[in-house]
């Protein structure tokens, strides 16, 4: 009976992801996930300590629901990172519990290897996600760590895994946990802010592999299947994010320390640019027949999505065509911008991905860019010496006029100067994106 329910649970999880293929069925997808989880937990209750487990679930569930209801959609990336760290930590706890309870019977080499690998991945996921969480919150910026230092720790970890497979004693396991935790820290500490979408996806993947590892240790097919699916999902997202930045995963993980140490290229300190007021922007927008809005992280930080939607509605009433263009790595996690626009009730069919909209910029009158710096930087196309050269960008510079909302004339997360600011057809609106857009709405 338990086996059958576990199988149904695995099928539910697969259906859950399958139903995310379109927005229309997506709620059903979430429901499948919940049903699958309920099956799995019910099976686990049979023959186990129900009351104690139930108390723990109530405590955790209350915290989880509270956090998930309170969090704003802007803070979504940091919440997801925090949740990943919990999966990692729990994987380590479960592996330790398995080790301690099997102590008297003795552990064969295979089980030892599974425990060692599971602990290793879990511990890296835990500390790595914690650092990612702090970085996404903006409370920690990062330090450069030399590559050989990480390599050294990785070698120590490999040796400890071998040592544990042979001896299966608690000393080598404790050391392994310690050094894996350290590796998680030192791997993510040097990663630059612009690479955060990749790192969040990668940690998502790790949390899946950690779950699979537990499945191997406990010989539980459901855990193996679920972990593998989650791992594959995170890996695909990381791949998509890397492609969106024209970087290799290896490059992001190992060579990203340069991002922090490299200061912004401030060769053009005193160049002139055209800056305007909200009224000027409103005038341009009023006379435009097609407008493309390009949201970036600036929209998320200033919560400008509702004001943008209001502006879009006013323009539409005026007969203007309004579209939204989303770059794959805009924001701090995959799909972040889509969620924020959906929050503001922007219709699904007005929102376009990079490949579908890039040809439309040449025919558009105004591109309204909201704090999306690096993903619109033409240097990615023209300047082979630029650190972002080769990255696919939204070609807003082809629009007749570009209105660029930005807090200051500083560089983006990648620390690269944007030629777009100084182009003759660009008007800079310097200030908070939400306040500026609200002023534009009033002027319309």
């Amino acid at each position, binding site marked *: 009976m338990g086996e059958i329910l576990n199988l149904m649970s695995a099928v539910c999880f697969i259906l859950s992801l399958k139903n995310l293929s379109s927005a229309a069925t997506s709620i059903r997808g979430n429901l499948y996930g919940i049903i699958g989880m309920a099956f799995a937990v019910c099976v686990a209750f049979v023959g186990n300590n129900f009351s104690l487990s139930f108390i723990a679930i109530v405590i955790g569930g209350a915290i989880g629901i509270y956090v998930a209801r309170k969090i704003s959609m802007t803070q979504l990336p940091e919440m997801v990172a925090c949740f990943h760290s919990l999966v990692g930590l729990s994987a380590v706890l479960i592996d330790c519990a398995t080790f301690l309870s099997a102590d008297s019977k003795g552990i064969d080499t295979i089980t030892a290897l599974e425990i060692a690998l599971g602990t290793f991945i879990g511990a890296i996921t835990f500390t790595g996600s914690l650092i990612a969480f702090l970085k996404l919150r903006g409370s920690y910026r990062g330090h450069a760590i030399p590559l050989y230092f990480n390599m050294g720790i990785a070698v120590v970890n490999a040796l400890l895994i071998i040592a544990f497979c042979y001896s299966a004693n608690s000393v080598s396991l404790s050391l392994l946990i310690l050094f894996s935790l350290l590796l998680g820290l030192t791997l993510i500490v040097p990663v630059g802010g612009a690479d955060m979408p990749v790192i969040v996806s990668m940690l998502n993947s790790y949390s899946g592999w950690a779950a699979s590892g537990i499945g191997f240790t406990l010989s539980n097919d459901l855990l193996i299947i679920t972990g593998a*699916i989650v791992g594959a999902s995170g890996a695909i997202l990381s791949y998509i994010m890397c492609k969106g930045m024209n970087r290799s995963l290896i490059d992001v993980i190992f060579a990203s320390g340069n991002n922090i140490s490299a200061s912004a290229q401030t060769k053009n300190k005193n160049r002139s640019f055209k800056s305007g007021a909200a009224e000027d922007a409103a005038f341009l927008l009023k006379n435009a027949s097609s407008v493309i809005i390009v949201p970036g992280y600036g929209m998320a930080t200033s919560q400008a999505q509702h004001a943008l939607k209001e502006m879009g509605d006013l323009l539409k009433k005026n007969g203007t065509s309004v579209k939204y263009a989303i770059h794959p790595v805009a924001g701090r996690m995959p799909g972040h911008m889509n969620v924020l626009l959906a929050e503001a009730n922007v219709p699904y069919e007005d929102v376009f991905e990079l490949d579908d909209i890039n040809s439309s910029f040449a025919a558009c009158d105004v591109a309204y860019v909201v704090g999306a710096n690096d993903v619109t930087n033409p240097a990615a196309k023209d300047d082979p010496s630029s650190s972002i050269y080769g990255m696919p960008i939204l070609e807003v510079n082809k629009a007749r006029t570009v209105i660029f909302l930005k807090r200051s004339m500083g560089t983006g997360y990648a620390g690269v100067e944007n030629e777009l600011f100084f182009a003759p057809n660009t008007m800079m609106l310097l200030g908070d994106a939400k306040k500026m857009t609200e002023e534009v709405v009033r002027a319309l």
Partner: protein
Amino acid sequence: MQDMFPKMCDFFAGLSSVNLHSMTVFILACFVGYYVVWKVTPALHAPLMSVTNAISSVIIIGAISAVSIQLNSYVTVLGFLGIVLLSINIFGGFVVTYRMLKMFKK
């Protein structure tokens, strides 16, 4: 050192019997995951991430079985902690996914 050879024999014998089954399941599941996830529309990548985060917490069943092993109190404490942390994830993950998807539905 002389027990190294039998240990290795054990290792490979173990690999071929018990773990081949697990390995089969694992590799096939990777393929399923690969094809299912590529079908997910990019607009829903954020909900995808939060829902996968919630379902990877299915390792809670490992923590639940750890709680009831009465061998020593450490194991129970570890298991209990694991269940609390993973429940945060499960409930939090599904609730936040639901909040997001409801926005897309509007």
